[in-house]
C-alpha cells in the first residue's frame, strides 16, 4: 500500500490542480479561430509566451500541440485564473517595451526567455503578480505540452495503453530526435 507521493507537497498540490485544470477543450476553441476570453492582441502575447516556454525547434513546440487553445478553454470558465493571466500578459509585454522592444512578441526567443526567467526566479518575498503568473503559465504550458501525444513523442514515451511487456529489456530508442 504505497500511494504515489511525488514530493508529497507537489503531488498533493498537482492532484488538486489537475482536477481544476482538467476539462475537455471547447471544440470551437480547439478549432482555433475563436478566442473567447482574451482579446486578439493579448492572445498574441499568450502565444508568444507559450512558444517561449516550449519553443518549436527540431521538434514541435507548444504551439504545434495546441496549447493556447487548451489554456483559453480553461480561462473561459475560471475568472480568477483569467485575471491572473491578463495581468501577467500585460506585465511581460510592458517589461519587453521597457527594454526597448516594441512588444513581447517582437523579441527573439532568448530575450523572451530572459524576461520570463527573471520573473520566475524572483525571490519569494519580492514576488508579485508577475511571479505568480509565471509559475502558473509555466505549469499549464508544460503540462498541456508534455501530457499530449506531441510531447510524448518528443521523448519517445509510449503511454501504457497496452502495457509494457518488454519491461525487463533495455529500452528501445524511440525518441523523435536527440538534442
Amino acid at each position: 500500500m504505497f500511494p504515489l507521493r511525488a514530493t508529497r507537497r507537489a503531488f498533493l498540490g498537482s492532484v488538486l490542480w489537475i482536477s481544476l485544470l482538467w476539462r475537455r477543450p471547447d471544440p470551437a476553441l480547439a478549432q482555433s479561430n475563436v478566442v473567447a476570453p482574451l482579446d486578439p492582441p493579448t492572445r498574441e502575447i499568450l502565444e508568444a509566451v507559450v512558444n517561449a516556454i516550449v519553443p518549436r525547434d527540431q521538434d514541435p513546440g507548444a504551439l504545434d500541440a495546441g496549447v493556447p487553445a487548451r489554456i483559453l478553454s480553461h480561462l473561459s470558465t475560471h475568472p480568477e485564473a483569467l485575471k491572473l493571466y491578463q495581468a501577467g500578459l500585460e506585465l511581460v509585454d510592458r517589461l519587453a517595451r521597457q527594454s526597448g522592444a516594441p512588444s513581447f512578441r517582437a523579441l527573439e526567443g532568448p530575450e523572451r526567455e530572459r524576461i520570463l526567467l527573471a520573473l520566475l526566479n524572483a525571490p519569494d518575498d519580492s514576488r508579485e503578480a508577475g511571479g505568480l503568473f509565471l509559475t502558473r503559465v509555466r505549469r499549464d504550458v508544460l503540462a498541456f505540452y508534455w501530457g499530449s501525444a506531441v510531447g510524448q513523442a518528443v521523448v519517445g514515451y509510449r503511454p501504457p495503453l497496452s502495457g509494457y511487456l518488454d519491461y525487463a529489456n533495455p529500452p528501445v530508442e524511440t525518441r523523435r530526435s536527440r538534442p
Partner: protein
Amino acid sequence: MITTRPETFDAIVVGSGAGGGFAAMGLAEAGMRVLLLERGRRFEPRRDFPMNHPDWELRPRAFRDTEVPAGGDASLVLEDGVALNPRYAHLRSSSTPGERSKASHRTPFRYERVFGLGGTTLHYQGEAHRFSDHAFRPASLYGFGVDWPVSYAELAPYYERAEHVLGVAGDAANPFKPSRGPFPTPAHKLSYASQRIAAGAANLGWALLPNSLALPTRSIDARPPCQRSGGCVQGCIFGAKSSVDLTAIRRAEGTGRLQVQTESRVLALEMGQDGRVDGVVYRRANSDYRVRGRVVLLATGAVETPRLLLASRSSSQSNGIANSSGLVGQFFMETLLVEVTVRFDDRIDAYRGPPIDSRIWNFSRPGRDGSVRSGYVLGVSGTLGGFHGPMSHALLLPGLGRAHKDAMRSRFGTSVTLFGIAEQEPRAGNRVTLADSKDSDGIPLARVQAAHSEADLLALDAMLTRVKELGQAAGAVEVLQQGTTYDVPAASHIGGTCRMGGDPRASVVTAYGRSHDVPNLFITDASVLPGQGAGDSPSLTIQSLALRTAEHIVTLARRREL
C-alpha cells in the same frame, strides 16, 4: 428524519477496502447475509481509469477524495506539525538538487483517502507481504514496540488463503522470510531498472529480490495477468491488479448473500441498552437510514475508524464507543519513509513494469543497522517521486524554454526512485483525536498528532544513507530529489489506533478484532495492528486478519455466543 430499514442483516461491514472486503467475503462464503456499506462508488476499470487515455497524465484520478477542498482535507484539521529537530536538517525534502525546504515545522499531516469500492486497494501498488515471524514478537526479541496477540504460525493459513484469492505473484525462495510453499503465481521478472539497481546492491552485499505482489502473472478468475503498465496508482485499466472490488467482493457477491451499497456514508453507531451496537446510521443521496445487524464490523482505516468510534458517544460510553481503555485513537503509527530519485547517464525507462517490483530485506530485523532500533526495508520504484510520465517529469525539472526542452530530451527515462520504509515504534503521544470543528455531515474532524522520536529520526537518517549508497553503487550519476517524512508526513502505512491485545486495559480489541467492551462490534482494518511489520506493506496482513475475524464470528454465531 431517519428511515429504519426493515431487514436485519447477519453482519454489517462498514468500509470496503483491504479489511472490509475480505471480512465480507469470509462471512458471505460461510453463509451469513452481509451488508457492505461504502462511501464511494463502484468503478469499472476500462471506463473509469485515466490510463485508458493517451493523455492520462492530464486527467485526475477517478477515485480520489472529491471532497477535499483546495489546500485542505475534509476530514482532518490541518495544523502545523511539530517543530523540526535542526540536528537532522539534512533530512529535509528537496525537489531541486542542493535546495532544501526552509520550514521550521513539519507540514500538516494529511492523507489521500480513497472513496470507492475496494478502498485503498484501488490505488495501492499491489504489495502483498506476509510479515516476518519476528515482526509479531518485536518486544520479546528486540525490546521494540509490543508483541502481537497472534503469531505468524497462527496467521499463516489465512495468509495463504488471502494470497490465493489475490493470485499473489512471488518467489518463495526469499531467505529473509519464513519458509513457505509456492506462491499462487510465479514472480515477476525484475524490470530493466531493477536489474541495474540489483547489480549495485550485489556490490554492497545486499540482495535485491523480487517483490511479492497482488499483480498475478497468470490469469486469475477470468481477469488478465498483469500487463506491467506501471499504472497501479491511477487504477489498473486492465483489471489485472487484484484490488478488493475485483477479488474478494466479487467472490462474496457471487454467493448471493452480499448486498453492496455504495455512496453510503456511515454517520454514527447507535448503542442499545444492552451495551451492544443496535443500529448503523448512514446517509445516502441526502437521506438518512438506520440499519441493523447482529454484528457490525468497522473497516474504514486508521483515522476514520477511531474518528467514528469517538464521535459515536452514548450515555453509557461518553468517552466514545469501545473506549473503556481510553486507547481509541492512541498509538497512531505513521510511515517512516525516505525516497531518493537518482539519474543515470543512459535511458532505463523505469516507468515500465510493476511499480515496486523489488525489495531489499537485509535490514528488516530491528537492530541490523548499528544503533537504528527499527527494522526497515529498501526498494526500487519506477513511479515514486513523481517521475512517471513526461508531464510529471517536466514539472519537476526547473526552468523553461530551450534549456528545459533539451533537459527533457536528454533526461526523460533516465531516473528511478529508491526508497526506504521503516517501522515506527508506537507511542501514546501520537494519536487521533476529535477537533471542535465538524465536516459537512456534522461529524467532528479528526486531529492527528504525530511526532518523531530520536529513534525515528535515526531510522530516517540510516535509510537515507543506505539508498544513496545504493544509487551510487548502481552507477547513478546524480540525485535529482529527496523526500523524507522528517518534514513532510506520509500516510501509506498508518495504523495502530485501535490496537489488538489480550489485556482490555491496554488494547481496544481482542486478537480476533472483537471489541473488549461491545460484544457485537469488530474492527478489521489497519487500526488493529500493534506494529508495522518492519517496513513491509500491511494490506495482506489486514486481509488475513479480516479472514480470521470473519471465521471467528461464524464460529461464535454457530455457538450462539455472539
